[in-house]
């Protein structure tokens, strides 16, 4: 297991060439340089180095607020993945369900679910529940749609072959359909993970007294811009780390895929 993870990192490292590292470096240098050159005041836009210092000094404070956010994101994502998967199986295997629900699923993907945030606050009150529900709701749709697409894209001849062998539905599902759909599912996971972060944080903006979303909003209002940016950085780190986790899992599970950087053909 550990070896596979290490190999995954190795593969990632190979793709992230020196060039892209330089781009990252250039981005931060440009930021630092612009702020110093144009004498932008600290409460408007602090330098990356100042933010880094603040992050180090306030690390416990940041950590304290990171935990609830992280929990909300992960719970929301898991909830979305589980319900999304179950519903997708229903949609993929029942034509009635499919015909009736598919257009709803596709169109509801477009609707900014953020607008529903206050409804959840009304329904579930203050606390972690509305955050998780909002995160799950936004993350849910790509998972349903892609999973259903993946499950229905299985080669019919392969299923026919399995049937002629006398394979049960259960065998066909686990030996053929599910692995077949995995690349689609992971394409959705990558998008959904990002969306779950947005959902959880918006939930904190709207109604919470904990978490990085709250922290960012609070320090925005109090003009402690450095702390606000420190919070944003922490959020970005969490977001990218969770995304990479999905990529790693994908790399581990789909190592047979000739190329992992397939375009997100769906959605």
């Amino acid at each position, binding site marked *: 297991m550990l070896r596979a993870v290490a190999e995954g990192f190795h593969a990632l490292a190979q793709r992230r060439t020196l060039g892209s590292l330089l*781009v990252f470096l250039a981005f931060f240098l440009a930021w630092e340089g612009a702020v110093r050159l144009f004498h932008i005041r600290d409460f408007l836009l602090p330098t990356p180095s100042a933010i880094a210092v603040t992050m180090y000094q306030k690390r416990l404070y940041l950590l304290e607020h990171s935990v609830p956010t992280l929990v909300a994101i992960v719970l929301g994502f898991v909830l979305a993945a589980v319900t999304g998967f179950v519903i997708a199986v229903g949609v993929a295997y029942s034509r009635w369900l499919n015909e*009736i629900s598919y257009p709803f699923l596709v169109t509801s993907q*477009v609707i*900014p679910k953020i607008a529903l945030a206050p409804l959840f606050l009304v329904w579930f009150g203050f606390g972690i529940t509305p955050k998780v529900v909002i995160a799950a709701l936004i993350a849910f749709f790509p998972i349903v749609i892609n999973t259903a697409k993946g499950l229905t894209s299985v080669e019919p001849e392969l299923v026919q072959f399995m049937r002629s062998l006398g394979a049960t539905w259960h065998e066909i599902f686990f030996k053929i359909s599910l692995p077949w759909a995995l690349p689609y599912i992971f394409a959705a996971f990558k998008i959904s993970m990002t969306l779950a972060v*947005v959902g959880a944080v918006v939930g904190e903006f*709207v109604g919470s007294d904990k978490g990085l979303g709250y922290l960012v909003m609070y320090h925005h209002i109090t003009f402690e811009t450095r702390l606000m940016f420190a919070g944003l950085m922490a959020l970005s780190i969490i977001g990218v780390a969770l*995304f990479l986790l999905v990529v790693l899992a994908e790399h581990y599970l789909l190592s047979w895929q000739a190329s992992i950087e397939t375009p997100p053909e769906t959605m």
Partner: protein
Amino acid sequence: MPLPQWIIVGLRSLVILGALFALELMVRLEWINPLFLARPTSWVGAFRALMAEGELPKLAWITLSEIGLTFLVGGAAGLLLGTLLYRFRRVGEASSSLLGAMFASPIVLLYPIFLVIFGRNRMAIMAQAMVTGIIPIILQTRNSFLHVNETLIDVGRVLNLTRRQMFFHIMLPAAAPMIFTGIRLGLIYMLLSIIAIEYIVGVGGLGNLVSDAYFRLNTDELYVGVITVGLLSLIFYTFLTRAQRWVQRM
């Protein structure tokens, strides 16, 4: 055997109507606190009132114009940048992981920066939404060009096409279907971003209507706001799907 179209449409409408009816019934029977869930019939009342005050059309127009402007500018810029990143391969390869990381990180949350730069106004909202939505467009545009079938390119090369002809008559039409996927994703991100920031910042628009209604505990108006947002998004999305079909003419 495929189900006849009218049955499908009928069933779908039935599902919507059934849900609305069940909602109405549950609230009327006081199974649910009306503060939580307003009755569909009282949404209509709130809708009428908001229309009469001219409030709803005004707010909807604000949001719609924001979406439209962001989409036009962001879409065009995204296409251009994506094309340039394809054209200059080295730069494209180097920046693809930065863009990938940006795509993965929740940019909506950078809104304070935009407020700092543009002030508390609609420019900030639109700039923010544009930055959020442009990334999938750029990424997917570059990707689409990279995936154009080699044989089609060879056909063009045999004919000694100019760069311009090659781009407009082969690359662009061949990549168009995939590019549209990026544009759709970008639109979804822009919509999400605009509504979220309107909600948080409170400078007008439907997002603001929703947050106002929430803080005043006016559940009827809250629902009207949410539903209008949904309809507006749908209209925009449908428009985009039509445009795609028209472009591909298939």
